[in-house]
């Protein structure tokens, strides 16, 4: 890996030192001023059309540009908030080309590039696209721009940490969104071992964000795998165009009023308001319009939101007690380990110990109750010291007027919390991206590497389990529990063999837990902390630590034939990607000598042509992708835009998209104690022979429930209790699995129709409807194996059924250390569809006031069924309202945003439950002090400190109030 860095740095250095023969043929200079106030405008961007060469105005609004070409040339003057101007230059020496810029008041004039991978007016985009420009970034009502994206039409956001927001569109959201792609300057920001973007934890710091484009819906036809639900493109500031020093500092506060929070009578949360800090600095400078560099650093720190949900995920199995002895609380860990104590009665060594205690007669009094170990609340196990450091470095060199070479580094590191199948503390992780790119106005060629380091990241749930076990083994704990339970029944005068009344049983459970928990490590005690550190410092599954340094290498290029072909637009592109899995055998089977890699290639072509006096534009794209483990896939997109006038645009599109199984979905090989997680490639199923005598775990659960219910009773009383294992009714519950399809990519077909219109220059109107049809959803099938063949049609218990089914009762490992339970990736062969619509309105009021709003409707048409979670995870109704003016006066601006979403069901492997409806207000006011070139901002998100969650199993969120100051050397 070191050699790679050297390589990259060497090339960068080489180009910095390179001396190019410059002989200017055209020299242009002048001054740019605000057309209204007459004041000079600093930072105005001036580029030569069809070239990469350009410049920006200095603090006095002055500019000079030398171009290695003879006139005529076209200069484009652009500045955010102002109308762009194109000026033809005909003289080789043009001095005093002074430009007056007019403020842009007409809506919908943005240029977007991502919808068609080429610049086009947002009004004419063939698919839905949203854009947040630099003013939007600066004026967001939320405490940072990324959270402010939630107000975009069609965008859904959820959150699993104060610094980890997850974006999605059009349904099927998740806290690790593998169906969504996020790019920073063209670089995929996913964590390679996880295959999902980690929100704003990497990518440019806020000072370095130039714009954000968001495409709701599939974009695989242009962007390849995983652009399934949508794509977000974050563009950082080019150091040529955005120069100078800028900085900001922010102080905030969260956890206000936390002491009120108690969902089961105990106080959860830090109990008092906690400060938050964030600081950032950016410096960029260009030399002679040829070479430019930038450095942006940012650091933020906060006390994370607490997971406070102590609802019982196992409430369904509570046999009617006021306290469920088998509770599995959402944000308490250790109680994932549970057992049916009736089954313990079948265990010979337990029988012996009970007989020795003189309680043998009570063995059949063991109730058919699930009992879980006593958990620790999340706050003692999850690292809540959220922080995030980001560094962005750019070195740009214009080799010629037409070609620019650049190197970019994006580094993100910190601590956060991620909700997956369990809650994961991403502790001191880091992701670095290095990119080298060569680009012109009609092409680019880039290569980048994403290097992940899981740092000290660990699984919080497993840590709780391991702390419990470090203190007392599960066997001992459940043994003591059950023995005490029987003793407590006897003490209450329950006759041997009788179950006792509900009250007696509940009292016995309480006594049993108290006895088994005797001497348990107290939360926060030295013993607890020692056990916790030990668990967190050894790798999974013996400990809870991840050890992952998986990397991704990506190369791609695009060429636009605009200089060669006139009658239509044509472009081609191709990409190559290499995942280099490197988990040291802690996630994948990539032990020494088994270096697992995954290669993907893709290529696309797009053609567009206008017809009927340019009123109709047809665009067709076709992309081919091939992952070495799956068949090649072709994804088309065809779209038509009908524009009777430039301000009225009707769009229709059809496309397909796909998502590859994640790197884990392909190659995971991880013992997670209750089963072994296996990738969906057929080699894994074969290596572990997982389909031999295998049954679905759901059917096994039904089987054990009946065994537990019947053991010790009727024909299975006394010494015959063990025969219950072969009970014919119980065995009939089992569903054998003899085969499962090796995992393949999941697919979506999407149809979208929309209308974008501008009424009277002031009302922007966007309406869209989509219909998505999904196929081949990637899922996991969990199996448990019997020790040998079973005769499910037996009419009476048989010795073969009893001894072979005995291993079905609990997950475990056999004499050779082989698990009896497996979870393997596969696909569901069921087609489901979803549809939705969105409407957005933006109205430009006089004097710079803007009011806007959007409404979004998303609906899953049918459930997956068959015991599978649909995981649509999206509110059916949602609306956003914004009202703001960045220049109420020269000094004062403000922005208000209100959003509401309906309640919805959140389904995920970690937890399933209702997310209540919530309405939230964000607001900020800003005050500009020109003498200091600074803007002060006072604001709050969730202004009224409403406690809410965005996903079931996520942390409870609340208000954040902040004050910030931003300095910009080039402030106008």
């Amino acid at each position, binding site marked *: 890996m070191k*050699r*790679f860095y050297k*390589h990259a740095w060497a090339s960068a250095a080489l180009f910095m030192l390179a001396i190019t023969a410059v002989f200017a043929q055209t020299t242009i200079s002048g001054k740019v001023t605000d057309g209204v106030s007459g004041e000079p405008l600093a930072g105005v961007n001036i580029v030569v059309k069809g070239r990469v060469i350009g410049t920006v105005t200095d603090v006095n609004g002055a500019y000079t540009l030398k171009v290695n070409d003879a006139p005529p040339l076209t200069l484009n003057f652009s500045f955010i908030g102002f109308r762009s101007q194109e000026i033809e230059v005909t003289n080789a020496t043009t001095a005093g080309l002074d430009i007056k810029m007019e403020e842009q008041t007409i809506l919908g004039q943005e240029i977007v590039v991502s919808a068609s991978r080429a610049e086009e007016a947002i009004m004419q985009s063939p698919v839905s696209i949203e854009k947040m420009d630099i003013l939007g970034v600066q004026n967001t009502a939320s405490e940072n721009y990324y959270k402010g994206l939630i107000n975009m039409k069609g965008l859904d956001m959820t959150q699993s940490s104060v610094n980890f927001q997850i974006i999605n569109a059009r349904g099927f959201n998740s806290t690790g969104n593998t169906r969504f792609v996020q790019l920073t300057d063209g670089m995929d920001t996913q964590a390679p071992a996880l295959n999902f973007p980690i929100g704003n934890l990497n990518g440019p710091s806020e000072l370095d964000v130039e714009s954000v484009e968001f495409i709701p819906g599939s974009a695989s036809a242009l962007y390849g795998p995983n652009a399934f639900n949508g794509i977000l493109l974050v563009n950082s500031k080019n150091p040529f165009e955005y120069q100078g020093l800028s900085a900001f500092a922010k102080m905030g506060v969260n956890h206000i009023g936390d002491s009120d929070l108690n969902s089961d009578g105990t106080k959860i949360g830090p109990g008092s308001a906690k400060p938050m800090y964030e600081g950032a600095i950016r410096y960029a400078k260009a030399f002679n319009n040829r070479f430019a560099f930038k450095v942006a650093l940012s650091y933020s720190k906060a006390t994370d939101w607490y997971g406070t949900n102590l609802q019982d995920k196992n409430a369904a199995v509570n046999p009617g007690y006021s306290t469920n002895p088998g509770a599995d609380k959402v944000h308490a860990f250790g109680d994932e380990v549970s057992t049916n104590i009736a089954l313990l009665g079948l265990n010979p060594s337990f029988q012996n110990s009970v007989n020795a205690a003189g309680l043998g007669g009570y063995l059949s009094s063991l109730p058919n109750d699930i009992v879980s170990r006593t958990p620790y609340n999340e706050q003692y196990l999850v690292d809540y010291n959220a922080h995030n450091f980001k560094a962005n470095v750019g070195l740009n060199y214009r080799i010629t007027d037409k070609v620019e070479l650049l190197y970019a580094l994006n580094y993100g590191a910190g601590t956060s919390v991620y909700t997956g199948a369990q809650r994961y503390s991403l502790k001191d992780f880091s992701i670095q991206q290095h990119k080298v790119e060569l680009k012109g106005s009609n092409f680019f060629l880039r*290569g980048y590497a994403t290097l992940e380091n899981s740092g000290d990241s660990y699984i919080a749930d497993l840590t709780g389990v391991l702390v419990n076990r470090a203190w007392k083994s599960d066997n001992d704990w459940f043994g003591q529990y059950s023995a005490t339970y029987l003793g407590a029944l006897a003490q209450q005068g329950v006759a041997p063999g009788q179950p006792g009344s509900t009250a007696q049983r509940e009292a016995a459970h309480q006594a049993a837990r108290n006895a088994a928990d005797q001497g348990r490590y107290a939360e926060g005690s030295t013993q607890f902390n020692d056990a916790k550190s030990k668990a967190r410092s050894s790798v999974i599954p013996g400990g809870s630590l991840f050890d992952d340094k998986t990397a991704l*290498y990506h*190369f*791609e*290029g695009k060429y636009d034939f605009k200089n060669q072909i006139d009658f239509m637009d044509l472009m081609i592109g*191709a990409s*190559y990607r*290499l995942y*280099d899995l490197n988990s040291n055998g802690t996630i994948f089977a990539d032990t020494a*000598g*088994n*270096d*697992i*890699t*995954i*290669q993907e*290639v893709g290529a696309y072509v797009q053609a567009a042509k206008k017809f009927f006096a340019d009123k109709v534009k047809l665009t067709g794209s076709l992309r081919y992708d*091939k992952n*070495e483990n799956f068949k090649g896939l072709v994804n088309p997109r065809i779209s038509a835009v009908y524009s009777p006038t430039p301000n009225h645009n009707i769009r229709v599109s059809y496309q397909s998209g796909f998502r590859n199984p994640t790197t884990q979905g392909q190659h995971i090989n991880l013992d997670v104690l209750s089963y072994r997680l296996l990738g969906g490639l057929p*080699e894994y199923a074969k*290596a572990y022979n997982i389909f*031999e005598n295998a049954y679905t775990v759901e059917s096994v659960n039904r089987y054990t429930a009946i065994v537990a219910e019947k053991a010790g009773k009727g024909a299975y009383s006394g010494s015959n209790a*063990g*025969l219950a294992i*072969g009970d014919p009714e119980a065995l009939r519950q089992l569903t054998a699995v003899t085969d499962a399809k090796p995992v393949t990519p999941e697919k979506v077909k999407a149809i979208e129709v929309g209308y974008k219109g501008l009424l009277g220059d002031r009302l922007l109107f966007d309406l869209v409807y989509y219909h998505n049809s999904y196929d081949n959803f990637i899922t996991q099938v969990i199996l448990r*194996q019997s*020790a*040998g*063949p079973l005769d499910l049609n037996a009419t009476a*218990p*048989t*010795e*073969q059924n*009893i*001894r*072979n089914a*005995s*291993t079905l009762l609990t997950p*475990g*490992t*056999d*004499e050779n250390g*082989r698990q*009896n339970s497996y979870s393997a990736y596969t696909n569901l062969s069921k087609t489901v569809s979803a549809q939705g619509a969105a409407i957005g309105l933006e109205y430009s009021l006089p004097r710079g006031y803007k009011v806007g709003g959007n409404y979004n409707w998303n609906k899953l048409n049918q459930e997956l069924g068959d015991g599978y979670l649909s995981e649509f995870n999206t509110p059916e109704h949602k609306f956003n309202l914004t009202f703001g003016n960045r220049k109420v006066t020269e000094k004062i601006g403000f922005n208000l945003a209100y959003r509401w979403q309906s309640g919805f069901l959140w389904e995920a492997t970690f937890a399933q439950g209702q997310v209540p409806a919530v309405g939230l207000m964000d607001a900020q006011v800003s005050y500009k002090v020109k003498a200091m070139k600074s803007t002060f901002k006072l604001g709050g998100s969730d202004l009224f400190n409403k406690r809410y969650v965005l996903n079931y199993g996520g942390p409870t969120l609340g208000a954040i109030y902040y004050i910030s100051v931003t300095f910009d050397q080039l402030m106008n």
Partner: protein
Amino acid sequence: MRNSKKYFALAFGMMAAACTYDFPETTEPTAGEADFTKMISVGSGLSTGFMNGALYTDGQDASFVRILAQQMQALGGGTFTQPDVDSEVGCYNPAAGCTAGRLYLKINPTTGAPGPAPKLPGDGGKALAPYSGSANLNNFAVPSTTLLLSLIPQTGGPAIPQNPAYNPYYGRIASTPGVSTIIGDAATAFGNGGTFLTFWLGNDDVLGYATAGASVAVPLTTNDDFTSRYNSALTAMLSASPNAKGVVANIPDVTSLPFFSTVAYNPIPLDAATAGALTSQLAVNYNAFLEGMAANQIITADEAAKRKLTYSAGSNPILINDETLTNLEPYMAGPYAGLKPYAIARQTTKNDLICLTAGSYIGANLGANGVNGVSAPLTNTTSANTQALKGDDLILIPQEITQIQNSISTFNGIIKAAADANATRLAFVDANAILASLKTNGAEINGSTITASISPPFGGFGLDGVYPNARGNGYLANAFIDAINAKFKSSIPRCNPNNFAGNELPVP
């Protein structure tokens, strides 16, 4: 690979690299240094699939040798022919005309306790009928074959009372009954293209003696005889096919068989009243007599203490005859005449081993003689007023156990020496250690327990308490597979013993 792949990717990123990830190669199945084309088996009942007290088709089909041969088929092993008895239940009592078949677990209608009982009727001798396919046999194992019997022609006939060596299971397959020998026939077959030998003889040189309670009816082979006969049999086989490889196994500690652990030393439940009556009517008198004998120095105080009887409510030991005790009959005159049946009696201790066969005699009402094993020393009868044997064949007393174990230890030394002497050709299975471990620790098969007992569902032995059941044979086959694979670097796949039947649950 790693670096070159990355550099390749860096340099030619846009070109789809041809080198894709290859899964680690699973080891190709191989016969290693061995050749499993034609396997010949020589052995005792353990190698025949004899189980539940009989040889019958289902048992033969699950013989560990056949399982082994089936697993070898993945590596070029050929067909494996056994002398099919074509019998559903086999013959439990050859001497009595095969009126009974194999054992099953029957619930005793009066006590409700399950116990082994033969299936009725037997196969009428089908299992003993001559076998026609001897020319193509692979499995020459014969139940109850001592080394001597494997080497002498009398084993095959004639079937006359004067020929105690006659074994109908060899008689039915012998190439020339009365002339040919087991080893001779097997060596011929082995010499005819045999490539692998499974040789497990020697068990019956101990087993018959032990299961007969170490009574003189079946003699224990002497050390010298064992040495010469074992080496002679093995040499005959190995020289028949000089390049073939093979496997030998030693003799399990037969005292660890469930045959000796199924019936406890104290299986007699007594209530307080019965115990009281036995104490006052028998124990008090006998114990007083013993004290007198000790006082008169006829017996030592230790022997007196060892012989004293106690009866109490709960589980009681068995009253037995012990031929190593001083015969006090001469002193049992006058008032003591009534004690004559107890001239060499004592109660069992945990140091005695009770044969499984004793189970059906203990507690039988012997009429005037009392209750068998309770008030009357244990004899092998269940009928009243018969002149019973002394019952020596139902118990192993500590001296006998030591004698048997010493012999086994010596014999195993001889077997190991023979294996070592042919180390390049023979793999060695320590069957002794396998049974010892199974007896003390039990074992697991894919997480499902297997024990050295006859109790379903986890017991690995058939109801005769000597021979493994089908699942036990699978377990045994894996032990042979492991030894062969380790020795010859072959990769015979292990079987899943749970695919085979254990003992059925008791039925009324």
